[in-house]
């Protein structure tokens, strides 16, 4: 049963990654494309964290994966803000 849940979670993570990638190609404005990056960071990270928790239990490795996910969320937000700021300044300069 646990193995099936892990397989399902990995499939959901892969689907979310493909959704983010296709969305990146399909969306037109650069500001819209930032949503795909945030989506991949939030959804794929959370689903992979759940899958690893099911596989390993509460181990050091899963703790590090939780840390990685939190880092991805925080740094994604900061870099998205900096990117939009850079876009705004470049648009004003032209």
């Amino acid at each position, binding site marked *: 049963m646990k193995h099936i849940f*892990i*397989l399902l979670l*990995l*499939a959901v*993570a*892969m689907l979310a*990654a*493909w959704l*983010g*990638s*296709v969305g*990146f*190609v399909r969306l037109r404005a*650069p500001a819209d*494309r*930032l949503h*795909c*990056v945030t989506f*991949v*960071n939030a959804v*794929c*990270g959370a689903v*992979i964290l759940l899958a*690893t928790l099911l*596989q390993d239990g509460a*181990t*050091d*490795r899963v703790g*590090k*994966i939780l*840390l*990685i996910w939190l*880092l*991805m969320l*925080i*740094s*994604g937000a*900061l*870099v*998205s803000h*900096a*990117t939009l*700021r*850079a*876009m705004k*300044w*470049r648009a004003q300069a032209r």
Partner: protein
Amino acid sequence: MNAWGVAAMGFTAALALPVSFAAFRGTLERFLALQLAASLATLVLVLLSFAFDQPSFIDLPLCAALLNLPAGLLIALVLERWL
């Protein structure tokens, strides 16, 4: 190959799509594709740690996630001021 390895391969293929798309676009699109690729590559390294059953491999995505923040901020700063 186990399910983790298959997932890592799927993530790598998903990574190739935005990168190849942005290669023929402007600077901002390339930077956005870099952000997406960095996130996906970090997750691929996590998956590979389970695919090869090597707990010590988990330090690689941790370093990648740590280094993504200053790298992204620096490139955004360069884009804002000089490019």
